[in-house]
Every structure is written in structure tokens, then in C-alpha cells.
């Protein structure tokens, strides 16, 4: 009996020890995937997670398609939906008329919402961990990654606001979406437009400070234009100020970006054969390795079996040349090689290079522009107190694009509106332009009178049910 007592005591003791050691032992490390703690164990890990967030943005549900060449361009009437492929008609005819409740449209909206917040979650995961791991970073890298993360969170939230809330001009005080700053399964409560805009600006201001030594345009390191750099932050602020209607601040901020001269308009007459999105002008763009292949698929022919094959995203020739580019043959955006006949259709070649031998060095394919320097000029022009100042900003863009300068009699707002259509054709920003102004009509849209609610995407059902909205 004595022995038994001793032994059981020993075993209990042993068991106790095992239990504590156990917890650690039970913590296993996958090999084909990486645990969060493991990833955030080095500076490189944070950098890779940040890159991951940009990669997520290139998904089709976000800037890889729907928020650029996809539904946003359809809603801005960049395409001739009724003449597109039958498959496209089936889906896009509802998009074109803002019939959000349709089964053909709704899932896309849900996906956009989810994908945008997924990017935010990835950024939040970084932000939640980065301060504790500050010691891992060399040089300015901590500030750069954190600044980028904050700025990206602001960028995505602002685009969500532009999609799922009415224009700022409406400012109804209603709550449309959450500004999510933490990572996890708990939903964040909704905020009104003003609060969101302020939160966006707060993040941007913080980012601006962190990014003050941003080596944009530097030769070393990665392409800062593919990340939320200092000028992207400033540019975004200018965009927001204008969205808010704060013209003086918009002008001042846009001017700041223009005057910094880190990112400049390209020189008129430059060879754009190899850089059709004008990458040098990008304040912020994304890189999607397979973008050209995807776009080729959408913009050219779908379903080879069909009798009269037409592309999914298709604009009839007369609309491109007449309605959008106003038959101005000198506009580089309308000329070869930016517009080309391909498989019998006039096809925009902003993202396509299939006419260039693929071995040609220096092709700038795979870029998805999200903000360009030209927009800063437009913002400055739109915010300018008078026509003279406005022309000071508008004419350099026109000249860069091969168009004649405007005179003092020009209607600045109309010219800017036309420019948005031309400049951001199949880029998605055009829709936001109409949205900001709550425009009563979108050019070429089959909807004759835009009701304000048409500018607001509906909140996904899941968000209502599972977020307890």
C-alpha cells in the first residue's frame, strides 16, 4: 500500500510537470502554411504580410476587376452592354441600370464588400502586431510599413464609403459601414459618413508623418508607386477633401503633390507603346501578374463557339470614338496603340500588349492604376477659385495627352467631366466622379435620371444578419 501511495504521488507529480510542458509541445508549426506568430517574427514577415494585402486587392472582386475594369466601369457606362456577349448581357444589363437586388449583381456586391474588408483585416493584423515588434525593424522600415498599412486601411475604407454610402454632399447622418481597426471575428459598429471620413483622414495624417522619409522615385528597393507611398497618401487626401467639398484644402493638397515633382505628367509625345497605363504618373497602382491575360479574356472574344463572338466588356466603336473620345485623333489615349482593332473590334489597349513581341524589353504590363498625377491636376483645376487658375492645372494634362489647350471661355467643369471619362476609361474612377457630384445623369447611361439611391450599393445581407445591423 505504501508503495502504491509513493508511486501514485510520483505519477501525479510527473503528470503535473507534463501538463505544463505539454502546452508548448502541443503548439505545432505547419510546414506548408505559416502561423501568424511565425510570420511576424521578422521584418520580412511584416513586409510580406503587407505585400499580401496588396495581392488581395488584385482579386477580381476588388481592383483586379470589379472596382476598375468591371462593374464600376459598367456603371460609368464605359461599355455598350447590349452589344456585348450574351453571357455579359445576362449579367451586366442589371449592373448598367443599377438594379442592385438582382441575383446577377448582388453576389458581386457582396464579394466586393468582403474582399475590401479582407484587405483591411490583413492590414489590421499587421497594425495589431507591429508596435510590439518594432525592435525587429531596421532603419525607417518600421515607419514605412506602418505608414503604408495605415494609409491602405484609409484607402480601402474610403473606397468602401464611396460605394456603400451616399455622396458626402448628402450627409444624412445615417450609419452605413464600420471603420474597422481591429482584427478578429467580432464585428465593428457602424459609423456615419462624417465619422468615416474623419477616421480616414486621421489614419492618413498619421501615415503622412510616418512616411515623411518615403524614398519615392528612389532607385533602390522596390517600386514605391506600387505601395501606399507618401504621395499616394497626399493624393488620397486631396481626393477626400474634394469629395468633402473642401476645395481650398483639396487645391492645396493636390498642389503639394504636383509641386513635389516626384511624380510628373509625362512629356507630350512620349513613346507610350510600352507603358500604356503611364506608370510613371501613378501615385498608387497595383501589380497583378496575370492581369493582361485576364483583361485579354474579358475585352476580347468569349465563347469561341458562338456565331458572332463579341467580348464580355465591349464598347462599340462609335461610342468609343464619338461619345467618349470626341473624335479627337491627336489624343494619345484614343490613338494607336491605346486603341486598336483586335479580332474585328476596336479594343482599348490600356492593359494589353499582345501586339508587341513579348520579348520586347521594358513592357510595363500588369499595372492597375488606382491614382494618377493627372487626377491631382483635375482636383486642383476643379477646386481652383477661378478659370485662370483652373486652366493652369487642366491645360498641362491636355497637352500631355496631345490635346490643344483650352481658352478662358471654356467651361471648366464640363471639360473636367469629359477628361475623367477619357483619362479613367475602364479604370473605375469615372463612376466616383459622378457619385461625388451626385450627377443627375451619367453620360451614355441607359438610366436617364440618376436617383441618389442609385449611387449607393446595398449593404450585404450577411452583414445585416451576422453583424446585427
Amino acid at each position, binding site marked *: 500500500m505504501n*508503495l*502504491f501511495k509513493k*508511486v*501514485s504521488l510520483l*505519477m501525479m507529480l*510527473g*503528470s503535473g510537470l*507534463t*501538463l505544463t510542458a*505539454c*502546452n508548448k*509541445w*502541443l*503548439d*505545432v508549426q*505547419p*510546414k*506548408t*502554411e*505559416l*502561423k*501568424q506568430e511565425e*510570420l511576424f517574427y521578422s521584418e520580412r514577415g511584416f*513586409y*510580406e*504580410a503587407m*505585400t*499580401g*494585402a*496588396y*495581392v*488581395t486587392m488584385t482579386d477580381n472582386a476588388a481592383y483586379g476587376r470589379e472596382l476598375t475594369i468591371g462593374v464600376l466601369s459598367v456603371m460609368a457606362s464605359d461599355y455598350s452592354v447590349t452589344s456585348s456577349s450574351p453571357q455579359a448581357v445576362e449579367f451586366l444589363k442589371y449592373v448598367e441600370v443599377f438594379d442592385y437586388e438582382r441575383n446577377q449583381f448582388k453576389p458581386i456586391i*457582396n464579394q466586393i*464588400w*468582403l474582399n475590401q*474588408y*479582407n*484587405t*483591411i*483585416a*490583413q492590414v*489590421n493584423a499587421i497594425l495589431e502586431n507591429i508596435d510590439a515588434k518594432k525592435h525587429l525593424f531596421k532603419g525607417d522600415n518600421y515607419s514605412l510599413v506602418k505608414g503604408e498599412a495605415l494609409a491602405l486601411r484609409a484607402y480601402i475604407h474610403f473606397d468602401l464609403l464611396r460605394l456603400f454610402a451616399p455622396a458626402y454632399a448628402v450627409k444624412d447622418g445615417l450609419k452605413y*459601414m464600420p471603420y*474597422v481597426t481591429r*482584427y*478578429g*471575428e467580432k*464585428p*465593428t459598429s457602424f459609423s456615419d459618413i462624417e465619422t468615416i471620413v474623419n477616421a480616414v483622414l486621421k489614419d492618413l495624417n498619421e501615415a503622412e508623418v510616418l512616411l515623411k522619409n518615403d524614398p519615392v522615385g528612389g532607385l533602390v528597393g*522596390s517600386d514605391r508607386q*506600387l505601395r501606399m507611398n507618401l504621395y499616394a497618401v497626399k493624393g488620397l487626401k486631396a481626393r477626400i477633401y474634394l469629395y468633402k467639398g473642401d476645395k481650398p484644402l483639396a487645391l492645396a493638397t493636390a498642389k503639394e503633390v504636383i509641386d513635389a515633382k516626384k511624380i510628373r505628367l509625362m512629356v507630350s509625345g512620349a513613346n507610350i507603346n510600352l507603358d500604356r497605363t503611364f506608370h510613371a504618373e501613378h501615385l498608387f497602382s497595383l*501589380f497583378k*501578374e*496575370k492581369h493582361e491575360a485576364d483583361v485579354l479574356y474579358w475585352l476580347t472574344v468569349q465563347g469561341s463557339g458562338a456565331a458572332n463572338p463579341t467580348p464580355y466588356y465591349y464598347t462599340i466603336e462609335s461610342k468609343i470614338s464619338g461619345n467618349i473620345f470626341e473624335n479627337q485623333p491627336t489624343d494619345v489615349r484614343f490613338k494607336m496603340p491605346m486603341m486598336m482593332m483586335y479580332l474585328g473590334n476596336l479594343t482599348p489597349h490600356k492593359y494589353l500588349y499582345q501586339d508587341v513581341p513579348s520579348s520586347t524589353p521594358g513592357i510595363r504590363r500588369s499595372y492597375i492604376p488606382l491614382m494618377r498625377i493627372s487626377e491631382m491636376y483635375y482636383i486642383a483645376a476643379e477646386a481652383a477659385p477661378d478659370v485662370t487658375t483652373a486652366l493652369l492645372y487642366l491645360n498641362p494634362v491636355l497637352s500631355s495627352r496631345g490635346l490643344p489647350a483650352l481658352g478662358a471661355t471654356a467651361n471648366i467643369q464640363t471639360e473636367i467631366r469629359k477628361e475623367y471619362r477619357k483619362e479613367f476609361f475602364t479604370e473605375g474612377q469615372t463612376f466616383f466622379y459622378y457619385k461625388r457630384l451626385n450627377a443627375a445623369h451619367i453620360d451614355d447611361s441607359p438610366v436617364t435620371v440618376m436617383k441618389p439611391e442609385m449611387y449607393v450599393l446595398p449593404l*450585404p445581407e*450577411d*452583414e445585416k*444578419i*451576422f*453583424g446585427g445591423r
Partner: protein
Amino acid sequence: MNETDKRKWIMRINLTTIFLIFTLMQVSAASFGQRVTFKKQNATLENIIREIRKQTNYDVLIPTARISTAVKINADFNNATLDEVMTKVLEGRNLSYTMEANMIIVKPKEKSVVDKVMDYFVAIEIKGKVTDEDGNPIPGASVRVKGAATRAAVTNSNGEFKITVKDYQDIILVSYVGYNTREVKLKEGQTTVNVRLEMSENKMKDVVITGISERKKEIYTGSSTTFSGKDLMKLSSSNILQGLGLLDPSFRIIDNNLAGSDPNAMPNIEIRGSNTLAENYPQGDLRSSFYGNPNLPLFILDGFETSLERIIDLDMNRIESLTLLKDGSAAAIYGTRSANGVVVIVTKSPAAGKLRATYALSSNLVIPDLRDYRMLDASRLLELEQKTGLYSSTVMGEHINRQDLYNDRLGMVKSGVNSYWLSQPLKTALEQRHSLNLDGGDQTFKYSIGFGAAGNPGVMKGSSRNTYQGNMLFHYNTGKFLFRNDLQITNTKGTNSPYGSFESYANAKPYFAIPANNGAESPFLYENVSSAGQRTAYVINPLYDAHLNTQSVSQYTEIVNNFSAEWNATGNLRFRATAGFSKRMADGKQFFPADHSRYLNVLPSMADYSLRGDLSVSNTKSTGYEGTLYAIYSKMLGQKHSLYFQSGFNIKESVSNVSLVEAQGFPNPKLADLAFAKQYAKNARPEGLDNTSRLAGLLAVFNYAYDSKYFADLSFKLDGSSQFGANEKFAPIWSAGLGWNAHREEFIKNLDVFSMLRLTSAIAETASQNFAPYQAMTKYIYQTDKIYDADFGSVILGLGNSNLKWQTTRQKKVALDMGLFKSRVSINAEYYWKNTSNLLQNVTLAPSTGFSSFMDNIGEVRNNGYEIRVNLVLMPGAKEQPRVTVWGNIGANENKIVKISDAMKQRNKTILDAMQSVYDIDRLSTMPPNIFTEGSSRSAIYALPSLGIDPATGREIFVYRDGTIGNDWRAADQVVIADERARISGGFGATFNYKGWDAVVAGSYSRGGYAYNFTLRSKVEDIDIRNNNVDERAYYDKWANPGDEAKYSAHSFVNGSTRVGSTSRFVQKNNYLTISAITLGYSLNQNELIKRLKIQNLRFSVSMNELARFSTIAIERGTQYPFAQRISFGANVTF
């Protein structure tokens, strides 16, 4: 001694020493005086007693058994007193007598010391042999003389023994673990005794082998059943588990109608219903190589966890016993692996003695079973084709072409072509299994070495599963210490048939002749080439690919070393430690040569022409170790209190990783090696997946019994697993049970009916963790196919849940075990309630969290049911008499989904929407959806209620949810029509033993289950008569003209118009009864010839499996691989 006293005395003798027989002798009334005069040479006892009776008024009360009547004495009594007579008669017989009233009572003499010493020297030597039921010698059996502890012997390797008895009144006791102890009476003058021991059913009922310890069944509250490997082998010649399904209704092997008798398909098994809603990963998904079926029970082989595959491949001859731990109380000791039940398999231990060799051969004829196929023959098919308008057209030119085609085919039919395609890829296969086992050693050190080879060709040509295995076992026992080491090596190679899916042969049209050289001649059965050389129409020859070097092979080699040590510290306290290590290397290969029919449409002009040929190679490596340390303490306190306590811990780790590479462009069909590939497969990259899981647990088991009447079990296990969330690393698992052995109560004993009456009840909380290893974590994955400029991004794969837990299954049961009429009838009945909560499911999140869902513990599934097993011994099989037993069982389980997550509901909607689009847009038939709804069974069949075919229009009429009717098929209106799982099912059988003969007949039945008759869909209703042959019912029972009361809708050629959405019309009752096994065996062991050949034992057996099947549903069984019947011949010889 008065009359009542006497009776009592007699009765006592009667009860205690059954061998005593009383002879009561009347003394003649005519004589008086107490003297006897009698003289006779060689007088028998009988003579003398008769004289005493005649001459005196004394009765003689005498245990005749103790006095051999054969003994003769020279009687020479002259007016001798009774004392003198008795002394003389009892001389030298260890007997004394007393005289009371007028009765002489003979009884054993009180022994003096001298007598005892004399006993020792005066001894008769008895030789003998101990064998089992089949006549195999039993080495190591204990032989002793009853009541004489010093006289004992152990049988040698031939089962032989020598023992000395002091006289023929001695009784010899023969016992061996696992067999009924036998008492043998000796006959006067007997010198050899051959004893045949019967496998003790009681022994199996006596001890429960839990895989962790052995527990006394009598005071154990868990539900378990144990079967011997030998019995299971008599029920099935394919694998050990098949027979288990017949014997215990809780163990259900779910019919696999696709895979049929494919030797490489693993069965799907459930013990008492399924506890999860998780779905199996589809074939081809790498994950399926790690997480098979989440409902599979845990398999424990000699104390170590093993895989189902390993059990299927295990040499059946090595299996000693198989125990099912069915309820929570029994299984809870396995902690988080316990919820699905446990199958504990123990292999044979070596026997001490001279080197002994046992060779077992099983040779099975596997015959394809095509009884369920009723395809049309050539002429009726052509007739049907013509009737449906296949050979006419409204366009004149086309009409002529089609008529030509018809005439061509008619010509073929007329010339007598009527190919029976079904049999083309099939053969009658001959399985061969050899098993050689050598064992020997002495009581301290025993060893065994075994080799096994099994060649299991399937009925489809080219398919096979071949296994080679070897094992080496050492057993060292000093009494205080016991060491055991078992090394096992297994290599299995599974080859799938190059003939592809059996379905294509069912579809092939009989009027096409089979191309020459068994189909190797041409890839086409029919080909129409236009004048421009363009192939315009063709029919593929399904046999063609089989003659190419098409390969689909998977194999594994597994090395397992299991070591265990036991220390018997004191009589009451034992320690046991085990350590197991395993390594497994598996690879798979799939090769399609360039000539394969899948590339028929890749023309030489195409760029992909040089990329024809495809090889995918997968590689899996797994290592694992497992260790346990337990202390076991058992003690009797006083006479009545028995205590049992076990405590200890276990750890387990398994690491595996799999990689998959696919390459294409193989110029030479013979060169199926990666090195000959042109390139990696287009748009593919090497895939890989790893899985590390760790488990650590603490166990405490307690049992208390009072007088073996009342008993209680308690167990507690704390299992930590790497698969749980960071905040929920440890799962507490427990069980508690109470039992009552009513047969030990006086009032039950007095009934003299029950040999056993036990009532047990238990409650337990068990758990399962059969899910992906890393899903509790937040993980990042490198998006290697999405380079961002020059950087790789790592993206969050899913939101981790650090609170993720195991699934909990609360189990309750009440059980009644009865043995009636001296165990001639035994009944086990049990009712159970199983409730699984914390079901692992995707839970929908507010998408603004960035994730649509994450894994959480939500959902509930219930399984309630009962099982009854009855065993009747019709003839107990006394000496030289047959033993006949019949048995039967019934099991019922009701499965109900109590709660599911919203994500699951959305999944349902997604599936239904997709079905609707398949029906409407793709214009295809649909099968019942695999959806889950609250309140219905997991295996419910969903379909649209149908009123049948409208005689007026030939269109089906459906009933929608709102009660309206119509012709449109609506996915969303599908409701639960029936349940696939049977309401009741079970097995029955009879066994027969007589002398060397033994026979078993067994069958199974199922009632109350339903099936969706897909034959009606694909071979009768939605027939593709352009390309496929059809079922006879398409010829006879289809609607043709208005007014036809037809079961099946009309045929139409407009593409897809005969498509049929899942309809209640095709949900049919699936009751069946099968005769699963008939086995006949004969053992020869006393035969002179055999003795001369130095064979200790020889046994032959013949059995037939899947002999007959009676079913209420006419459905093609085994669509991708046919079912098979087996005839097996077995031989077993021991030298």
C-alpha cells in the same frame, strides 16, 4: 440418522460431487443376523453387496464411482461379521465406512501422513494431448489433478502432456487461456486422455480487452463485444471487418454502390450512427490523403492506433480477437478519439514449446456478380433506337444518311452480333493468401515469426491489391517482468484496373462487335470519316485504353515497431509502459499515355499534340510515435470489496507530408516516368500539404465492486491536442457507470433460470477530433502564383479560432445481459442515446470582419437506437454429439440533425441554386442534393415529391411546398422523402460442430432504408440512347401515347428534355436480405496417416460469400466496379 437428515446428506453429495452415484441396496427381509457367508473367486463388488443385502438387514450406501466394479477380490467369508466383510472389501481403497442404524455408509478415509506419502509414490501415469475445437494442438495448456496442487503439467508444443494420478478416481482438469476448462474423469485402466478444449465464449465474455488494459467483464459497465478471429474468418473471406458487421449490429459497413468489390476501396464504417456533418474531401484533393472519413471508429492494434487500411490489409490468420468498444463508458479511455467507438484488435501470442510451424492457405475464387444488370440485347436496343427516331429525320438527305446507318446496324444484328460488353473487363479472379507462422520458446522466452503474402486480384481485369507482410515478435516473461517487442513490416500495392470505370461497359452498345485482340485493335467501335478526312462521328471503344500502358497504382510500405514492458511490482500493483514507432512511405502514380482516348480530339495540327500523355505522381511520408505509461492497481478488500485503479498518461505524434507533381507530354506510352515528360502540366505547380498533430493525455480509471453484485466504473481522461485552439488545448473526457449482477442475488439464484442477469447503465462524455490539424490557427500562405512586382505576398488563409474545441458526444445507455437455462439462451439488449454537440462547422461572420466564415463549435447531431443480440444453443454438443447454435441480432439507429449553423443553411441554398441552374441552364438531370436540415437525418434523401407521369402528356407532375402541383422542377421545393439508412438491420446465423466438422451459415438483413434509384435515372428515364445502352425498363415501361399509365416519362430527342430532376418517384424502399456466408470446415488430427506425417493438425474449409441477395429495389449495384461473390478454399496445417 433420521430420514430427513439422510435426505439432506444425500442431497449434499448430489450437489457437490456430481460424480458420486448412489446405490441403495435392500437387504432381504428373509434373513436376519449380521453375518455373511460367501465364497467366490474373483467376486465383483456387486456380487458381495448382493450377498450382504441377502444375508443381513443392512442397506449399503456407497459411492460406486469410487469403487471400480471391475476390481475383483477373492471372497472367502465364513459367517464373517459385516466389519470383517467391509474391511476386506475396502482394503487398499482409501475408504472407510460407518454403520448407522441398519445402514453401512462408505466414505473416504481420513488420510494419514503415511497415506499421503504413499499417494505420491503410488501413481498411475496418464499421457494425453490437448487440442482445440479444430484439432490444433494447444501448447502451454495447464493440466492438473483436481484437489492435488502438486500434480500438474503443461502441454508441450505438440499439445502433449504426462501427468500422474494416484487412482482412477482422480479428476483431471485441463485449462488454457481463452478456452473452457474441462474436467476429465478417468476410466479404470485408462492411460491416455485426449482432451479437446472449446473456445470459451465465456472467456470472451469474461474479459474485456480495451487495448489499454484487461478488465473483468462481470463488473464492467461499458458496452463491448468480443469475437475471435477464427469466428470472424468463418464469416468472411475478404476481410475481418466484413464478418463483424454480421455479428454486431452496432457496427455498420455502409454500402458503397459505386466501388462495389473493388479491392482498393476502403469501406465506410459507422458505429452507432454518424456524429459529424463534415464531408469527406473528394478524391484528388490532397487533404483526402490525411483526413479520410470523420465518422470512422478508432482502430487499435495490439494497443497502438492504426489505420483502417492497415486493418484491411492485415493477415487474418494473425488475429486472435477483436473487441468493439461501443458506448461512451467503454471508449472514454481513448479521450478525444473516442466518440466514434473503438475497434480493438489483438494478434496471436506465440506459444511455448518446440518450434512449431503453422501454414495457412486461403484460395478464393472471386466471381463477378452481374445479377443486377438488365441491359438490352442488340436487337431490342436497335428496335428501341429506331422507335425513338434515332434513324429518321425530317431533312431528306439526313434521313437517308440515318437510314443507311440503321441498315448498317441492322446488318450487324442480323449477322448475329450481340456483344455482352459487361463481361469484357471482368474475369473470375483467384485470390491467394499464404501465411506462415513459426513460434516456440519456453515459458520465459517465447517468439514468433510470421510471413504473409496476399494476392488479391479484383474481378476487373488488371485491378489488384497485393500485400506482403512480415512480423517478428519476442516475448520475455520472468514472472515479475514482461517484455514484448513486435516488429511489423507491410507492403501493399494497389493497382486499379486499366479498363476504367465499369460504367462504360454497361453503356456500350451490344450491336457493336468487340474489336479484334480483345478490343486492342481500334479505339473506335464506329467511326465516320468525311471525304475531307475529318472525323465526324465516332463511338469510343472502352476496351482500347486498357491495352495501352494506362496506370493507376498506389502503394505503401509501413514499418511498425511496438514495444511494451510490464512490471508486476506486487501482487496488486502493476506498471505497464509501451512505446510504438511507425514509418510509412506511400506513393501513387497515375499515367495516361499519349494514345489514350482522352486525347482523341487533340489533332496533330494542334499545339497541344506534343503535350499528350499525363503523369501525376504523389508521395506521402509519415512518421509517428506513441507512448504510454500506466499503473494498474487491483485489490480485494476483505471478502467482498474489489477495487481497481488505473492511472497514467500517453503521448502521440504523427507527422506526414504529401507532395504531388503532374507532368505532361509523354512521347512513348511505355515510358511512364517523370524523366520522360516534356514539361510540368500547364498552369499547374507542385502541390504539397503537411500535417503534424500531437496528442497528450492523462487517464484515471476506477472500478469498485461489492461482492461482484454491485459495481461502479469511473474514468477520466484529459486530452491535450495540437488540433484545438490555443485557449482550449485540453479536453476533459469522462464516464461513469453502474451495474448490478442480479444473478448473484439469492432470489434470482433460487429461480434457477438465469445463469446471468446483468443490468448496466452508463453516461459518458466523449469527443472526436477527426478534423484538419491547423484549422484553429490563423495562418498565412504564400501566394506563389501571384507575384507582386518582384515580391511574394503572404495572405491570411482564414480567421483562426483560438477557442476552437473538440466535438463532444454525450452518450448514455442502459444494457441488459441475460443468460438463461444454463446459458442455453443468451440475450444482450441495449438502448443508447448519443448527442453530439459543439459540432465543428463553418459559422458565418459579418463580412466586415474580413472573413465570411470561420470554424466554430456549433451544431448538434443526435443518434438514438437500440441493439439486441440473441444466441441460442440448440444442442450443447456433449461428447460425441453435435453442437448447434443459432444467433441473430437487430440494431436500430435514428439519426437526427438537431442544430446547424447559418453557414450550413446558406450552403444548402447555394447547392439548391446550383441544382436549379444545372437543371434549367445546363439542361441536365440532377441527383438528390447533399444538404443538411435541422430535424432530419444526416442521410436523408431530398427530392421533389412527385405524383408520377401524367398519362395525358407523359410529363411528370410535382407537388410543391405550397401544395400546388405542376410540371416544373423546382430545386427549392425539395423535401425529405426518406432516409437512406435502414431503420433496422442486423445479422443472423447458425453454427454447427460435430466431431471434426464445423459449419456456419450467416446472413444479414436491412429494413426501412431507402435509396435513390439512379439506374432509373440514367438507364431508363434520362437515357442517352445515341451513345449508351439502356435498361430493359426503358424498352418496356416508358410512356409513349396519351393514356399510357407509364412509370417512366416518354423519350424525346430534343436535347435534355428527358432530364429528370431529383424526384420522389425514384426513391425506393431498399430492404434486403443477403446470405453472406456459408462455411464448412473439417479438421483431422487423430488420423493415423497425419500422425505419421508428423502433422499436428490439419484443417480444410470451404466457404461461399455473398451467395444470394433478395432486395426490394432493382438497381445496378457496383456501377464503377462490380460486386463479387466468393468461393474460398482454406487449408491450415501445423507441424
